[in-house]
């Protein structure tokens, strides 16, 4: 298997989701609160992964903009769980060196008096490996 093929297989494995079940109905895209921020839309993740279009996937902003709110997972009629595909993509990127979306050095500037720990922890978990 090429490197690319291996990465795609890894995404499928980590997500535990079967992208072939997707029937391109668009309900995930219709439900996504972060739609406006996404370059690759939720319903497109399945086809990108099937085609093995990894380059575009790893460059995408979408993986970082996903809120992890599970609306797409709850409503998908085919149990494709697109949110899991998005998250698996994010992990593939984050696990690479230099792939993090948030660096510790950035944090002091962003801190405010009332910022809850929950925000920092969640952000660290989602924006880094």
């Amino acid at each position, binding site marked *: 298997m090429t490197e690319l093929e291996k990465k795609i297989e890894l995404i499928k494995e980590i997500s535990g989701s079967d992208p072939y079940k997707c029937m391109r109905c668009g309900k995930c*895209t219709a439900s996504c609160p972060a739609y406006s921020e996404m370059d690759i839309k939720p319903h497109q993740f399945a086809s990108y992964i099937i085609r093995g279009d990894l380059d575009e996937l790893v460059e995408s902003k979408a993986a970082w903009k996903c809120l992890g709110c599970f609306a797409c997972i709850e409503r998908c009629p085919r149990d494709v769980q697109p949110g899991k595909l998005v998250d698996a993509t994010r992990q593939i990127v984050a696990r690479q060196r230099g792939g993090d979306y948030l660096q510790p050095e950035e944090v002091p500037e962003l801190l405010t008096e009332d910022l809850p720990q929950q925000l920092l922890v969640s952000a660290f978990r989602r924006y880094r490996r």
Partner: protein
Amino acid sequence: MQKIGVFVCHCGTNIAATVDVKKVVELVRYEPGVVFADDYMYMCSEAGQEKIIEAIKEYKLTGLVICSCSPRMHEKTFRACAEKAGLNPYMVEVANIREQCSWIHKDKEEATKKAVILARAAIAKVNLNTPLKEGESPVTKRALVIGGGIAGIQTALDIADAGYEVDIVEKEPSIGGRMSQFDKTFPTLDCASCILTPKMVEVNQHPNITLYTYSEVEKVSGYVGNFDVDIRKKARSVDADKCTGCGECSAKCPLGKIGNIPSEFDRGLRNRPAIYMPFAQAVPAVPVIDRANCTYFKTGKCGVCAKICPSKAVDYEQQDEIVTVKYGAIVVATGFDIINLDKFGEYAYNESPDVITSIELERLMNAAGPTGGHLERMSDHKQPKDIVFIQCVGSRCDSEEKGKPYCSKVCCMYTAKHAMLIKDHWPDTNITVFYIDVRTPGKNFDEFYRRAVEQYHVNYIKGQVGKVKPQPDGTLLVQAADLLDGKQINMKADMVVLAAAIEPNPGVRKIATMLTASIDNNNFLTEAHAKLRPVESPTAGIFLSGMAQGPKDIPETVSQAGAAAVKVIGLLAKDHLKTNPCTAQCDTLLCNGCSTCANVCPYGAITYDDVQVMDHGLRETRRVAQVNLALCQGCGACTSACPSGAMDLQGFSNRQITTEVDAICR
């Protein structure tokens, strides 16, 4: 010793490519009992069968082994061929060297070895075959149709017109089914009632048809040609012989004005009185009292309907009545309903009265419906200017708890119909349809849908709806995806219509169990063969008509109804049916009366009787098993369960099975 002929079929390359048929012939030629062995390209063909007949005559064969495809394909063919040549058809065995050999193996050497073993086993069995004789059972020339919708009505009419008696059992107070609730039907836009009610009247007046409405099938026993059915005629509380259908009772029932009993026929969009006819054209035009909600039955007060009935037809004392009728054939035409939408809260169906289902829309647009045919929002009775249709609600859904995996087939067409009818009446309405695919698989169907787009400018958007959001100003905001233009849109709507998935009517599983008719995980009744026998159940004597067998529209339903009728007529036209001679037999001298066999028999074919037995010179009365040969299907459960070996299966006796095993293990 038998004189057995063995024929090995090439089946073109199906068998010959993986099995060396000539070698098989060589190796079985010297098996005990074999006097003739040959191979041929296609044994089932006319030429192939000629060879068999010639061999039987020339070699005076007493038994045949055909090594070919599965007996499910051609056992009948070869038995008939043997009979033509004067050989008892039950002296024929089929060794399946195709589905069980050539089609599943790749190695020719292995496959050939296996084919030889299978042939040997069949030969060993035929050596012990006895010439069985088929029995005969009578046929009651009366058919039962369960369900009085368009499917049941059409089937009944076709059977009755052919001269046979047929009964329709319908659980609602009136026949007509789902179609009677519709407004217009695609693709012709005929008024549903206009084409249905004449048939309903015809059914009511036909001399060969008996209607049991407000009735249910309670018990079924028997077998093809001889079913005994208990029908429960639920108490209407109205004497049908006296009632003239004037409707005074419903008009005067106090619960009609002050009550809150939702009308099932109007899908809960308006209320009905406790004594009611479901709709004005009901057949029979006799009301029923809903005893669960009627004041008189709940508290003993009221009684207005009985007082004002001019024909004195109201009878509070009426009881349910059970009638038992004999039938030769039963047709299941139990129809459908739409799924429960509780699991689709994102569409706000339970929250907003302006989110409705397509059937509710049919009632709103129907001139006899709750709004007299005016399209209005159920919240404020204003006419909707912007309507959104959402397709595939609960269809094509992989999650069992939420929806159904199949496509409901009729929704794309009926939504196009709804859109065009609304636009026709009220051209200023904006209509948007959110779809995944548009499926139009019928004659003139795609042209119908294109008319909606090109002539009526209905806005079809490919993409699903994520959420329907009720707004403070009483409108709805529909959050959806436009996949082809790549947008997430928030569209204002005054009314949202959900094309909900269809499912077979609840209660069909109970009926299928009563009939021992196959039913699948989606509660559709299964056909004997999906392509070649679509209107027959695998259970002999049971036939399928309409949505009960699978999603379909009215043209298909009527076609299928006719097909089911023809099959029924074919059955009823016979005076006798041949029964399977491979039935169980009890050796009364060995039977110890333990009842094990009766307990395992799935067909209820075994009873125990006291019989006189001569044993060692003594006459005794013993309790032994008796097999009803007409009910017995030869499954062999009793034979394997019998602890004393008293029960044996003709055609598949214990000795025959062991001799097959011996031949395999040689």
